[in-house]
């Protein structure tokens, strides 16, 4: 009744958007690979992810296996990235270190995103004193520059992997919560959310069903961004020697330790440093691609 039988344009459009919807995920991948920069970034990330998963299979030696006879070797066919002053295979340590940094940064980001999302959703939706108090608290936390805060916390918690994890969660939760909250504030004014309130929907239903789907794209972009900063942070803390302790194959720590021999064994610094640089840039380019895909105006 709305359109003449001769020209059912609505129907045609409808068909098209059904197709679009069913393939949202493959569309993201397609979009990431349609720009050379994000294609390179995504590929880099996937390669490192593979290294992290398959590390022990790929690495020819164990992370702390010392081959005294081969110590201080430049790259060769036997040790493609050379060996360090203790005779450890740099290639193996770099490969095995991928798991360390991706696990710390990935898990830390995930936890921060989860807690930040919950806090941001509830705080933004409920408003009132809870919101006011939480936001002022976060303002205070964010008044301390991130690395300074991280160092302070690591000073208390002591240097270990779990401390680094906690630091990432504590430093990034307020940031994620604020981003989520700002979306909630704009979404909760919309008619469909108010209609749900007038239908007597429970708060959890409103948050999950009515509000959360609109938060998702922004959250995905923020997560990608946080992940790239987390990698950055883990590497920097490793370099400062305040996170994990030797002999863990942490790339930042490897760079720090290699500084004493850099004039004689430059490869011990070059490879872990290059790994950090490539991973960080790769994840950045990927995050930029995700942002372009999810937040670009149609």
């Amino acid at each position, binding site marked *: 009744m709305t359109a003449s039988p001769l020209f059912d344009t609505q129907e045609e459009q409808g068909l098209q958007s059904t197709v679009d919807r069913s393939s949202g995920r493959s569309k993201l991948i397609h979009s990431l690979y349609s720009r050379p920069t994000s294609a390179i970034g995504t590929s880099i990330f996937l390669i490192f992810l593979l290294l992290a998963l398959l590390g022990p299979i790929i690495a020819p030696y164990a992370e702390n296996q010392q081959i005294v006879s081969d110590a201080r070797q430049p790259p060769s066919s036997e040790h493609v990235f050379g060996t360090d002053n203790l005779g450890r295979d740099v290639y193996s340590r770099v490969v095995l270190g991928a798991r360390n940094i991706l696990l710390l940064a990935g898990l830390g980001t995930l936890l921060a995103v989860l807690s930040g999302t919950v806090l941001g959703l509830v705080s933004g939706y409920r408003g009132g004193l809870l919101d006011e108090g939480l936001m002022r608290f976060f303002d205070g936390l964010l*008044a301390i520059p991130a690395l*300074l805060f991280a160092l*302070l916390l690591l000073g208390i918690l002591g240097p270990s992997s779990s401390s680094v994890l906690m630091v990432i969660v504590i430093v990034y939760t307020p940031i994620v919560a604020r981003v989520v909250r700002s979306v909630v504030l704009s979404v909760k004014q919309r008619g469909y959310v108010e209609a749900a309130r007038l239908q007597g929907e429970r708060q959890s239903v409103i948050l999950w069903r009515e509000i959360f789907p609109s938060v998702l794209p922004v959250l995905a972009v923020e997560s990608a961004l946080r992940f790239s900063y987390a990698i950055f942070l883990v590497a920097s803390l490793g370099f400062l020697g305040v996170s994990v302790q030797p002999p863990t194959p942490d790339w930042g720590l490897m760079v720090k330790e290699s500084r004493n021999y850099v004039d004689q064994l430059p490869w011990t610094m070059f490879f872990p440093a290059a790994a950090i640089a490539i991973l960080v840039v790769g994840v950045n380019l990927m995050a930029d691609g995700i942002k372009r895909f999810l937040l670009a105006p149609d």
Partner: protein
Amino acid sequence: MRRYLLRRSGFLLITLLFTSLVIFIVTQYLPGDVARVILGREAGEAAVQDLRAELGLDDPLPVQYFRWLGNFLQGDWGISYSTKSEIQPLVLSRLRNSLMLAMITLVISVPLAVTLGVIAGLNENKPVDNTISITSLSVVGLPEFITGLVLIQIFAFRLNLLPANSSIPPGSSFAEALPMLVLPALTATFVLLAYIARLTRAGVIEELKQTYVRTAELKGLPHHTVILKHVLRNALLPTITVVAISFGWLISGLIVIENVFNYPGLGRLLVFAIDRRDLPLIQAVTLVTVLAFALANLVADLLYAYFNPRIRYE
């Protein structure tokens, strides 16, 4: 405007009070008994107890907090556990060094970054923009220690132009210190440059979409007038805030950079203090840094308000 100023200052005060509390509480949980740390492993239990009482460590926490804050405000920042010397002169001299490095960095990077950001923004998605954007996207992500080490490799080891170590001896003149400042400042510039440029670009692109740009164009004004007079006036306003935010970024960066170059600033002092579990020193360094960051934010807020008529004539 006055109301705005009061509000911002009040907010600053509350923030500082709050962070001082956070810092105080956090440092209370540093592992290890402070008195034990000071006296060393061999000291007798009685001596440790005496020192605890003397340092006021047995008092309730609120008492300790207000005593600490009161002393801090009066300039009594306490004695460092590890160096056994007055903290204030040490921290202030390191602060001077850090500020010097920060200022040089800002002076180089802000004009450069803003120019690059504006050029990129005005040429959105053209080759110039893509080059600037991709470069900054790559550079912005690189941890400072990587950039720093690469610069050391090139300028110190290969070209032998500049020192790799920037541990400026106390009492050096600026001319003597200058060569040692170049590489750390350059490293910090890299980080800041990309960051500010990206945000400036976004601001320009956002502003170009505004309707008033069309009004200005359709008045028949020359294109450069539209850009310089109408667009940039609004687009550059947020960069004041951007620079303030990037100051926090710079502080984080400088902590790492100072450790790469052995530069005697607050960042190096902080890592040293954490290493030694030097509680009063950690508190002092952190609080001073937060204060510097907060002041930078206040200045930026005021500048923003001054240049923004929507706030100035509230």
